[in-house]
Structure formats: structure tokens, C-alpha cells
């Protein structure tokens, strides 16, 4: 290991010995790629021909007027191929996998978004692909599983632990320690052992680089605040990194407040006081854990933010007060989503809607001269089961019941 990958006290690579050579190889490949101008060129070329980079910036004309405060801009990662910023990371790691001459990729997924992105990348690059997904999430997110399987990926339902994201990560590591020779583990966020946090942030930095330039082009100045939701932290790192050198730009990370502060049912590691520093899943950061260090159950309306840990780089930036952390509760998030759909025709993912909720709240107290920028990390149209449940749509339930009856009859008759 050339560099232990610490950000003040956070980060590191707490990995089983058997993976040490694999991480060495990965770090070397990553560092060489970073040094190789052509790699980034190839990456941008791929993202602009296979996905639609640069993604645009959209101004929320109606809501800016309605709220009557800051002028609100949105970075449109939802327009990426497969519907979220996850595409940036997987395509980058896909190129790296090719560079390392590996032929198989594995990944964990919670919401399913990263699983679909990885399966897509694997189809595009011709890799074999296995996706680990908590059995609980497999149930919640069948549409994503369906598409992963159509892409040729094997989706393994993880029945261990809480059957959600963290268990899928553990399981992916278990696969990797067996198959490291031909397999690359495409970690989905800016977490995990070094070099993942830094490498994933690097691929996602394309968001921030574009956004800064676009805001300057569009408004002639920098936004006053930049909002991003924080699950593992990759979309936040992506957009924030464009503004790290701009001290006047306030960066706001929005975590899953779930049922609220003190409820014990949330996934706010930095905004609330329930988390403490620990080491798990290969890295040191703030975790929602008990005093023994056992990870706790988390809750969020959005599967993609429902995670016990957080990027070590963000933990560092939190302590260094370079990023402010807030949490948005489930009800405010659903409200912000519905408001954005209703008045702007944009469908932010429930994850992204956390950033919208906080931005709307703060915009009110700001001046119309101020611009703010929200990272719309993904679109919700694939999460219709979750969204329909979140807004309690009775017609949706009827539709599902009718559809099920039709399937049942079909079974009977043939």
C-alpha cells in the first residue's frame, strides 16, 4: 500500500490480508490512470457518447419565484444514462477494470441504482457481473433487479444481517477475497478502503468541474451555497469538489433525517449526534453504532441514503468545518419531491430530494441576488414502488392488486 489514504483521522484500508495485493494493484492502476492524461480524455469521451455529459444546469424558475428567496439552480445528474450520477463512477471503474485486464466485476447495491449502473457498464464492456443486494432490498426494488438480470448480471440476494446495503457490501468483499484474480469490485460510493473514497470522488468530480463552469457561464458568478444529499457521499464529493477552492461557496451535505433527531430511526451520521467514530467495511469514519461498535439499523425513506457509514473524506470535511451537514426528515423529503415534480416537471430521486428539501428551506431566507445550486443526483421514475408508497397513492395499490389477480389467473389457466 503506497498511501494509507487518510483524511485527518478518517479513512485507511482495513482489509483482510488476502486482499492486500489486490488493493496494491488497484491503487497502482488508479494512480497511473490519474497520471495519464489520455485516461481522463477517454473517460470524458465515453461519458459524452454513452451518457450525456456534460449534464445541464436547470434553473427552477417557478419555485425560485414561489419561494421568493435565492435563485435556485439544479445540476441534472438525473439525465445520465441509467438515471443517476452512479454512471460516472461505474464507467470510470469500468475503464480501470479493462486497464487491469480483469474480466469480471462485482458490486453491492442498496437502492439498486448502483447495481443497474454496474450491470450496464458490464454489458457495455463485456464483463461478467454479479451484484450483491440485501434480500430486503431485492424485495423493495424488484424493477432494478429485473433490469440487472436483463443486462445479464447475476443478482445475489443477501440474506445475512439486516439484509440491506451494508450486508451487501460485506458479501461483495467475501466474493472478492475468493475471486480477486479476475474480478474487480466496483464499490458504489466514496466509502470503503483506500483508494475507493478518493477514486470514486475523482470520477464524480466531473460533476463539480462542469457545474462550476456552467454556473459562471450562466450567472457570471459562483453560487452562494451548494447542496447535495449524502448517502455514502459520492455525489456530494462530486459536486463539492468543484468548489473546494472557492472559500465563499458554502457546501451543504444533507443526510437522511428519517423520522427525525432523537427518533433513533434515521441515517444521519454527521448532522445528528448519534454516530461515533469506528472502523467497519474497511475504513474509519463516523458510524451509527452502539457502544460496543456493533452497527445499528438505520432508516430512511430513500434506500440510497440508508447506510451506517459515510465517506471518510466527508467526515474530515465535517470536522474541518469545510462542509456543513444537515438532515432532512422523510416527510419534508417527500414534500420537496412532490413540490419539484408539480412545479418544475423534474422528478428528483428520493435521495436527491433530501438536498432539495434543505435548499428550499434555506432559499427562503436568502436574497434573490443569491444563487444556490442543488445536485440532482438521480431521477425517481424507476423508484415508482417506493414513491407511490411514500405518497400513499390508492390508485397505484389498486393497479397492483388488479395486476396480481391477472397473473394469478394466468397461472391457473396455463
Amino acid at each position, binding site marked *: 500500500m503506497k498511501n494509507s489514504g487518510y483524511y485527518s483521522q478518517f479513512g485507511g484500508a*482495513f482489509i483482510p490480508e*488476502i486482499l492486500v*495485493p489486490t488493493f496494491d494493484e488497484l491503487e497502482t492502476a488508479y494512480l497511473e490512470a490519474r497520471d495519464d492524461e489520455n485516461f481522463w480524455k477517454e473517460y470524458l469521451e465515453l461519458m459524452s457518447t454513452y451518457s450525456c455529459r456534460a449534464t445541464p444546469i436547470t434553473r427552477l424558475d417557478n419555485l425560485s419565484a414561489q419561494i421568493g428567496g435565492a435563485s435556485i439552480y439544479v445540476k441534472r445528474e438525473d439525465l445520465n444514462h441509467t438515471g443517476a450520477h452512479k454512471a460516472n463512477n461505474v464507467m470510470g471503474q469500468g475503464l480501470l477494470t479493462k486497464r487491469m485486464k480483469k474480466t469480471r466485476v462485482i458490486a453491492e447495491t442498496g437502492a439498486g441504482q448502483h447495481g443497474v449502473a454496474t450491470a450496464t457498464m458490464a454489458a457495455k464492456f463485456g464483463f461478467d457481473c454479479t451484484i450483491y443486494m440485501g434480500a430486503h432490498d431485492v424485495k423493495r426494488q424488484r424493477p432494478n433487479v429485473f433490469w440487472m438480470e436483463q443486462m445479464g448480471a447475476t443478482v445475489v440476494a443477501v440474506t445475512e*444481517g439486516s439484509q440491506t446495503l451494508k450486508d451487501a457490501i460485506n458479501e461483495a*468483499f467475501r466474493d472478492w477475497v*475468493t475471486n480477486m484474480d479476475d474480478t474487480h469490485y466496483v464499490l458504489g460510493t466514496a466509502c470503503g478502503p483506500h483508494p475507493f473514497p478518493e477514486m470514486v470522488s475523482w470520477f464524480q468530480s466531473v460533476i463539480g468541474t462542469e457545474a462550476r463552469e456552467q454556473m459562471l457561464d450562466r450567472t457570471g458568478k459562483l453560487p452562494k451555497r451548494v447542496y447535495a444529499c449524502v448517502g455514502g457521499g459520492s455525489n456530494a464529493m462530486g459536486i463539492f469538489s468543484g468548489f473546494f477552492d472557492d472559500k465563499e461557496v458554502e457546501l451543504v451535505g444533507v443526510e437522511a433525517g428519517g423520522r427525525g433527531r432523537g427518533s433513533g430511526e434515521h441515517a444521519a451520521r454527521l448532522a445528528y449526534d448519534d454516530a461515533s467514530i469506528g*472502523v467497519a467495511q*474497511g475504513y474509519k469514519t463516523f458510524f451509527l453504532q452502539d457502544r460496543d461498535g456493533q452497527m445499528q439499523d438505520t432508516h430512511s425513506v430513500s434506500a440510497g441514503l440508508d447506510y451506517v457509514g459515510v465517506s471518510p473524506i466527508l467526515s474530515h470535511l465535517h470536522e474541518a468545518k469545510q462542509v456543513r451537514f444537515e438532515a432532512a426528515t422523510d416527510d419534508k423529503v417527500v414534500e420537496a419531491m412532490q413540490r419539484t415534480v408539480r412545479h418544475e416537471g423534474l422528478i428528483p430521486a428520493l435521495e436527491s430530494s433530501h438536498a432539495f428539501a434543505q435548499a428550499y428551506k434555506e432559499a427562503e431566507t436568502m436574497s434573490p441576488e443569491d444563487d444556490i445550486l442543488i445536485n440532482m443526483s438521480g431521477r425517481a421514475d424507476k423508484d415508482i414502488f417506493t414513491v407511490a408508497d411514500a405518497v400513499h397513492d390508492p390508485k397505484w395499490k389498486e393497479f397492483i392488486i388488479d395486476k396480481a389477480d391477472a397473473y394469478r389467473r394466468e397461472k391457473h389457466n396455463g
Partner: protein
Amino acid sequence: MDKHQTTLEQSIRKAREKKDILLMTHIVLGYPSFDDCLRMVEDMVNAGVDLMELQIPFSEPMADGPVILKANAEALKAGATVEQSFEMAERLTKEFDIPFLFMTYYNILFCQGVTEFVERCKAIGIQGCIVPDLPPAEGQDYLDAMHRCKLAPVHIFTPNTPEPRMRFLNDNSAGFIYSVARKGVTGKDTAFSSELETYLSTCKQNTSLPLAVGFGVKSAEDVNFLRGKADIAVVGSETIRVMEKEGVAGVRPFIETLVA
């Protein structure tokens, strides 16, 4: 770490004078219950086990396979705490005259405070620790504390480990080297082949410590294969599998077949 000889290493070398190969077994503390653990240890010691790994359960046992994974989860679900694990370990070291090691993940140490954890190990008679997610580069505090307390930090060799790294790991270890016989997590099969023989001789060449070999050992035949090639045969998941299938009472007969 300079090469002090730990009590653990001494005990192993002494036991080896009498036996071709030693047997190390593994239990997860609190699974299926602390009482059952006590009974199983008793049976194992009586059956002739030479040393034991006591795993303090952790919610994210990244390097463990399905059997031990489930044991961890069940122990926690039944309410097992680190405090209870310490209490049980203390009782075991007092009652049974074989070396005991802790096996657990780094967060357990970290949350207790690494120094406090190690000092308490010392206090209750634990002779060494295996922390599979703590490479030496990340564990200086731990290594220092273990060294100060004259406890054995055991590290792992794998078929993927290059020889220079084996020597580095050896330099940071005490007690013995835990050599895994194949890639993958605990509890899966290994083909005991000539390839394995070559690998084990490489392991031997790169350590001055006794060599334990684990992952996949499940029969007298497997143990016999290791005779002359290693100092300790480690039986991990298989004991738990037997216990789950045949009850706690099935453990002793199983161990007896191994040491026969």
C-alpha cells in the same frame, strides 16, 4: 516488533514436542449461548484440543463465511456484548489449561480503546489476538500495546501474499502465523494438493514462528495431510456446522475423530 518470545509461542513449541500436530478450534462467543460455549470448550479440551480461538461477535464480519457469519449475527441477536465475552473468556482461561486467543474485528478493539482492550486481554489471561481486518500498517497502536503486554498479535499468510510481505507480517507477529490454505472466506472447501504443499513450504521459509493452517479443515484425513507441514491444524466453521447439525453433544465425538 522485535522478536520477543510470547507465552503463546512457548506453549505451542512445548506442546509440539509431544505431538506431530496441534489442533486449534474456534467458537463464536455467545453462540448459540454462553452456557453452550462453556460446554463446548469443556468438551473440546477434554477431546484433546490444544488451543482455541474465541471470536467476539461483530455485526460486520467481513472476512467470515456464511457459517460463522450467521453465528455472529445470532449471538448478537441473543444480546451478546463485548463485556460478556470478556467475562466468559476470563472464566475459560481460568478453568482450562490451554492457550486461548481472541479473534474479532478491529472495531471491537477500537470502540473499547485499543490499549484498554489489549490490557484487559492480558488481565484475563488471553494470550493472543487475531484481527483479520487490521493490517499491520493500520495497527501500530495495537501492535505496540500487544508488545508491551507480551501478547501475541497473530497475522495471516495467504496464497496471494508475496514473500517480502510474508516477512513483513512475520516481523509484526508473535505466537504463530495463521496461514490460510486457500482464497476466500472461512468455511469453504480446499483441495489439499501438492500445490498446497509448495505454498506451505513457502510460508515456513518466511516465518520463524509456528505455522497454523486453516480454512477448510474438516476431517482426520485433512489433519493428517498437514502433519509435518504445519504445527497447528485449525478447525473453524466445521465445528459449528457439526454443533448445528448434531447439537452441542456432537462436538466432542467430532473432535475426537480429528485427533485420533
